[in-house]
């Protein structure tokens, strides 16, 4: 019986619904009078008419229309509940010529997927979003949807939607109309033949916008769900035309399609040459790191306030060690004080592959301020060294540990570049650190660390030497 009543053949639909199969492979699974079947046919017709079936991919949402892919003759991706606009975004970004249709019910689009809805619209993604507003969750048995009318009885509002408990119906077109990016927004109805004609025009406009790659188009359809709402054909038509339309007035909210230019995205470039270029590998020399078990590994900890160049000094040291053929690791510890507070980093220099990159017991501690000095001094190994900024005041090191004040900030200030205190400290480390690295490696590291500002290298080389002299 159903097989006869539900036949909705159209140019853009499959002749036989093979994916559906079963005993009635030319009938849809929709209930009689359901708006989904009507809209499927309109979309399919329009796709065929615009000759865009090859380019089109429909997102089948979670909801009654989860099986859209049974029917419309184009590419299909089934999506998780509410995520269709995100999935369509992924396809659209990957395939610039694809035409994306995000087909969604009101639970899917306006409840669980509201964020995806708003954000895709706000990015102006190239997609047509077709929104079936039937005021209920159809598939799961008629629970309240965000669009359920005040007073409307549903499975979860047995005495009618009470705004004091459940708020008011959400107006999605109006909400999206506050955004700049959407090209087209319209609300139409599927209540009767006249309305369906207008709906057809809206679908056509939305798909033309997609064909021409012009951006985001949104069409809301006030749609009959006679089964869940337990209404006959006449009653559901009245319900839509009177009660729903009172809440959700039919309107073209905007059509900017004649003003906007197509969005074209570049093709991906996969060539190795381009990659070598962006990673700065062209002309990059090879470094040979040779195991040297006789080399005694060194752990260095550098600590201070954010902005004192703690992390970059560590990176410079890592470069110096690496370019000297040592195994090396650098690891930053922002701690809980990541923003604006203290920071420290660990550098391990070794003759063989490195275990933990975190230095708990440094051979050398470099402290740029008093708190770092106090926090880490007791961790320094016996026989180790502490270099600290002279401004941190006098300091008595733990037994068996040498502590040397370095006028790092003073040197930097005298050169008019306060940020170079770490360079002066680096000079002191070169002089006293006993890290087993050649002297030239320290200054040589600036070629890397100042790669973006090579003009600063000569001055920093001078400050490096001055830092070294200051502790000689």
């Amino acid at each position, binding site marked *: 019986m159903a097989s006869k009543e539900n036949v909705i053949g159209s140019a853009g639909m499959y002749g036989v619904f093979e994916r559906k199969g079963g005993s009635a492979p030319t009938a849809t699974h929709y209930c009689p009078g359901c708006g989904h079947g009507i809209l499927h046919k309109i979309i399919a017709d329009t796709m065929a008419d615009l000759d865009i079936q090859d380019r089109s991919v429909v997102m089948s949402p979670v909801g009654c229309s989860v099986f859209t892919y049974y029917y419309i003759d184009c590419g299909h*991706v089934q999506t998780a509940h509410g995520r269709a606009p995100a999935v369509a975004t992924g396809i659209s970004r990957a395939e610039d010529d694809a035409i994306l249709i995000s087909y969604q019910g009101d639970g899917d689009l306006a409840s669980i997927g509201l964020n995806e809805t708003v954000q895709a619209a706000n990015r102006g993604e190239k997609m047509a979003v077709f929104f079936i507003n039937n005021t209920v969750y159809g598939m799961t048995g008629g629970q309240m949807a965000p669009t359920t009318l005040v007073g409307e009885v549903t499975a979860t509002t047995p005495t009618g939607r009470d705004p004091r408990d459940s708020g008011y119906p959400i107006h999605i077109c109006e909400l999206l109309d506050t955004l700049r990016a959407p090209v087209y927004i319209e609300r139409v109805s599927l209540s009767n033949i006249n309305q369906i004609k207008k709906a057809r025009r809206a679908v056509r406009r939305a798909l033309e916008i997609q064909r021409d790659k012009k951006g985001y188009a949104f069409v809301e359809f006030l749609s009959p769900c006679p089964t869940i709402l337990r209404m006959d054909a006449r009653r559901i038509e009245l319900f839509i035309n009177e009660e729903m339309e009172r809440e959700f007035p039919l309107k073209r909210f905007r059509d900017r399609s004649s003003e906007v230019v197509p969005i074209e995205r570049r*093709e991906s470039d996969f060539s190795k040459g381009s990659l070598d270029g962006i990673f700065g*590998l062209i002309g990059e020399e090879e470094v040979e*790191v040779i195991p040297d078990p006789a080399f005694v590994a060194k752990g260095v900890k550098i600590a201070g306030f954010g902005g004192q160049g703690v992390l970059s000094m560590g990176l410079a040291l890592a470069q110096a060690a690496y370019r000297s053929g040592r195994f090396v690791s650098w690891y930053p510890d922002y701690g809980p004080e990541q923003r604006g507070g203290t920071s420290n980093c660990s550098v391990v220099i070794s003759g063989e592959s490195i275990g933990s990159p975190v230095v708990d017991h440094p051979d050398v501690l470099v402290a740029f301020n008093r708190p770092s000095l106090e926090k880490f001094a007791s961790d320094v190994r016996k026989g180790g060294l502490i270099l600290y900024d002279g401004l941190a005041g006098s300091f008595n090191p733990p037994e068996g540990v040498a502590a040397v004040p370095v006028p790092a900030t003073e040197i930097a200030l005298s050169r008019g570049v306060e940020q170079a205190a770490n360079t002066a400290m680096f000079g002191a480390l070169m002089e006293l650190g006993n890290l087993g690295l050649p002297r030239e490696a320290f200054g040589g590291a600036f070629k890397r660390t100042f790669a973006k500002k090579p003009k600063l290298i000569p001055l920093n080389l001078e400050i490096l030497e001055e830092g070294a002299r200051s502790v000689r």
Partner: protein
Amino acid sequence: MPAQLVEGNTAVIVGAMYAGCDCFFGYPITPASEILHEASRHFPKVGRKFVQAESEEAAINMAYGAAAAGHRVLAASSGPGMSLKQEGISYIAGAELPCVIVDIARAGPGLGNIGPEQSDYNQAVKGGGHGCYRNIVLAPNSVQEMCDFTIKAFDLAFKYRNPAVILADGVLGHMVEPLNFPQTAVEPVIDPTWAVCGNRETRGNLVTSIDLDFKELEAHNLNLQAKYDRIRENEVDYEEYRIDDAEIVLVSYGISSRIAKSAVDAARREGIRAGLFRPVTLFPFPAEELKALAERGSGFISVEMSDGQMREDIRLATGCRDVGLVSRYGGNLIGRDEIMEKMREVA
């Protein structure tokens, strides 16, 4: 081979780009954010696609979409974000799409903190979302491997049309080490037999994970299980260190395995016959190899920053109930001395 000092998170992007990945969708979270930053910096330079998504759910679903179109897609996150991605990963597994997902794990549960932990093991290795599925899981332990395993993950993801997870942690993500850059760049080819690209060739294709027919969905599940068995047969990878005469075998992966390795050397100096077995693939887990070691009579200690999540797999593989555990939580790395102490206890 050109080499540079590179951060672990950056190495992931290097690997992905040389592997022909051209879509990245992400959402900020420490300690994985640098992957997002580097993608935003480098992808557009070569016309590759980058979107900062509105959430991890949106990000993984964008990845699902681009993967459905047959592209090489990367997603990356940490703890709380990985939890949000689980629904999407289940869909990716169910629809049999290739996708590489990087977890720069942090300490949990809940918001936890941004220090390292290895407590996402179960989530990554056992599936993590709903339904019976497995991710291929690779566990790098160096910056070099962050790059190389990302490349390998793309190969495996496409070979099996399956999500592949790089399970790392905050230390691996943030540490800087030398990286030898890849010597080749992949020019990916889209497979029109299953991808949905919005063109004539793929118009008849469908990507889905729903099947209302119980028999059919069971058959699909059995196919998935057969695929996971093939992965178990062919893709197990591990590393052994001083294992030949080892009486105590430390089993450890990722950042902890490096510390375990130094503990092995230190133990040997004390005359303890220790060795390291490091699973490189966590799924498939190197169960047979561990079993062989058990049959030889070795004892096992699992060294992992979790409550023994991997230890359960060691127990299952070896049949030994008595597997030791050295663990830390809350963002603390395991100390070499803690491992030494445990070894002295059992030696």
